[in-house]
């Protein structure tokens, strides 16, 4: 590295991130996926959400078939006649939105609650932890079913269901790690210095809880996307006419034994690529951000 170059924190971060070639590849793939998804309306032949453009007569065409409506379906079509290429690009948008939104909201809520529980202790801790117990024993399917019954189906409802299902995991883990940290001498020292509670929590306790949190965070974001698919599989997920990757996979599930592999294979591949690249980027981020790993 050029020693004369001035090292900004961002620059250092970047150069450290680039130490892993896999992470760079993953980042590029992820960027490509996001760009394709954002550009979906302009680069796809079909709007898969518009029933007037989808024809059941085009259903289940193998990859490369000429559609009834006049364009080539390079990845084939699903049971309802949606062009899979179009449906996948649109589906990535929904899956990413659902996964990231649910993941971040659950992480934020769960972490905050977990920290409060660990730091406050006493009745607050008891109350929160028992709420966590209830939450953990509450199946996501039941939440989703209740939401479908009251509010109907939709992206926002599925996000609520997923946040409900996941915040407790974060809370429980953060509390556990924070308890260990709070007992350490430096926190005691901070308390002796009469630092404010918020300062102690956010500047001292939280950063030390980050490592397990990021691990769980990346895993849970991925599993939020997979859980959304499972909910769709059980019939309480997103609307079938506005499919996410998960809905496409769960629709394709029944075709798996019939040789029409493409209906679930291509959406599955897209989901796999997305999640693997998110996680590889996440892994590297975690290693770079973690001060204790500096040699």
């Amino acid at each position, binding site marked *: 590295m050029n020693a004369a170059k001035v090292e900004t924190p961002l620059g250092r971060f970047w150069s450290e991130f680039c130490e892993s070639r896999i992470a760079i590849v993953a980042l590029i793939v992820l960027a490509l996926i996001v760009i394709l998804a954002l550009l979906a309306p302009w680069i796809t032949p079909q709007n898969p959400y518009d*029933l*007037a453009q989808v024809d*059941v*007569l085009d259903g289940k065409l193998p990859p490369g078939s000429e559609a009834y409506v006049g364009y080539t379906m390079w990845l084939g079509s699903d049971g309802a*006649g949606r062009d899979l290429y179009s449906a996948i690009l649109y589906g990535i948008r929904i899956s990413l939105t659902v996964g990231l939104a649910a993941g971040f909201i659950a992480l934020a809520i769960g972490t905050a609650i977990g920290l409060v529980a660990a730091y406050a202790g006493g009745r607050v801790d008891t109350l929160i932890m028992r709420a966590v117990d209830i939450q953990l024993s509450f199946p996501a399917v039941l939440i989703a079913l209740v939401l*479908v*019954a009251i509010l109907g189906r939709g992206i926002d409802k599925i996000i609520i269901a997923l946040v409900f299902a996941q915040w407790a995991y974060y809370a429980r883990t953060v509390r556990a790690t924070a308890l260990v940290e709070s007992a350490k001498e430096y926190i005691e020292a901070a308390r002796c210095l009469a630092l404010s509670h918020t300062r102690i929590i956010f500047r001292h306790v939280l950063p030390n809880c980050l490592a397990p949190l990021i691990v769980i965070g990346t895993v849970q974001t991925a599993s939020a996307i997979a859980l959304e698919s499972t909910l769709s599989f059980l019939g309480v997920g997103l609307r*079938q006419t506005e499919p996410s990757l998960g809905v496409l996979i769960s629709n394709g599930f029944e075709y*798996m034994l019939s040789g029409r592999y493409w209906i679930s294979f291509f959406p599955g591949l897209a989901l796999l690529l997305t999640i693997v690249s998110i996680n590889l980027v996440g892994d590297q981020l975690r290693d770079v951000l973690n001060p204790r790993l500096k040699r």
Partner: protein
Amino acid sequence: MKNTAIGALLASAMLASPVLSEELTIGLASEPTAMDPHFHNLGPNNAMARHIFDRLILQNELQQLEPGLAVSWTPIDDLTWEFKLREGVKFHDGSDFTADDVVCTWERAPNVPNSPSSFATYTKGKSVEKIDEYTVHFKTEAPYPLMANDVSTVTIVSDQGGCQGTTAEYNDGTIAVGTGPFKFVSYTPGDSIVVERNDDYWGEKPVWSKVTFKPISSGPARVAALLAGDVDVIASVPTTDVTTLEKNEDVSLSQGVSNRVIYLHLDHDRADSPFVKANGGGDIDNPLQKLEVRKAISMAINRDAIVDRVMEGVAIKAGQLLPDGFFGVSDKLEPMAYDPDGAKALLAEAGYADGFELTIHGPNDRYINDAKIAEAIGQMLTRIGIKTTVETMPRSVYFGRASRGGPNDTPEFSFILVGWGAGSGEASSPLKSLIATHSPDKGWGSSNRGRYSNADFDALLETALSTVDDAKRQDLLAEATEMAIDDVAIIPTHYQVSTWGTRKGLKYVARTDEYTLAIGVEKE
């Protein structure tokens, strides 16, 4: 003499020569909820009861009536039917079958504690009287032509314990004692039900010495179990796998049309229907009340596409409430021909040249491919200008709302996808429940979720249901069906076809009632 003996020997040797195991394993799509034949009036339960028990009258694979424990049944006056019982039949515990068993069965069937759906539907309004050991009289207060159909749904249990026992005692096997072709061996909920051959059966003896039923609810997993050789027979082969399995040499398929019609119900009742909107979302007068609009919707539906593409050819397009061959169907009705341009013209004629907005509601876990059918119909209607939103939901949410979700327990939706299986195997069942005016007191129109009401139709059906003469009743029912279809009271789309899969060397005799019976599994 010698020759014939050798011939017989040869024949028996040939019969026995493929050393096939006499044991059979069947993968069921849905599991019975109890071994008590009167506990739950539900398809899987009734099918399972057919193994261990008998009925006075049996329904064959086409739901035609055949002598069971009764050898004959005749009306001796307008209000009385005489049943002659089969003599020499023994229960599995060795006791004799007599008129007492029939009388006590009739007592028990509608009165099982905690029953989620009792047999009162069939036993009500009929009293039974023992004349002698092998003769009983069934009496009604008004002439009742469907006596035999109703009697054919009730399973006979023994008055030596069976009538007095509880559901739990049936489930653990202590009183699961019938006259049927198989004897109870074990019942493990969720895991398996095992029965063994009754060698003293009065009818044709089953081929199988032992039969194990395994519930495998996931369709692809059921197919995989058959392919892996873990089960010999599976019920409800998913339509998506039919084409592939047909090509597979290790498997053979049996198909038969079922008594279930899939249809669309439209809101005939409310002037302002909640899920019908003007373009852009404003309120409009309910266009579904206009015959032209209902006809246009029916014409816009490409039934061939539904059958060929959505159902993969495993369905028959429908023009009325029951497929050909059932009692009371009309031979004049044909499925509405697909004609999108005609549909648009009709819409324009009715004053909806630009269409309107509509939501189709349907279940997603009740009928074969239900959600996909709803989506295909959504596409077809959107194409003629009726901008359609598709909302499907689990049946646990769907049926309550479809029946009573609106204000004052009225149906909530405007346009729904539903199915109807005629348990009695004749046309009065759907006509009475789906088309007749909704009237809780009379017990009519209980599933009339479109609240269609037509006094002429009601009168015609009333006449039909009190006509004991079969030929006359058949004509009246057909006439009533034509009246309903001409007025587009409902829009039938297709009849379901049931598919069973067996390993090579076996064959299943397909049934219209969707039952999976071990006695229907034959060696080829």
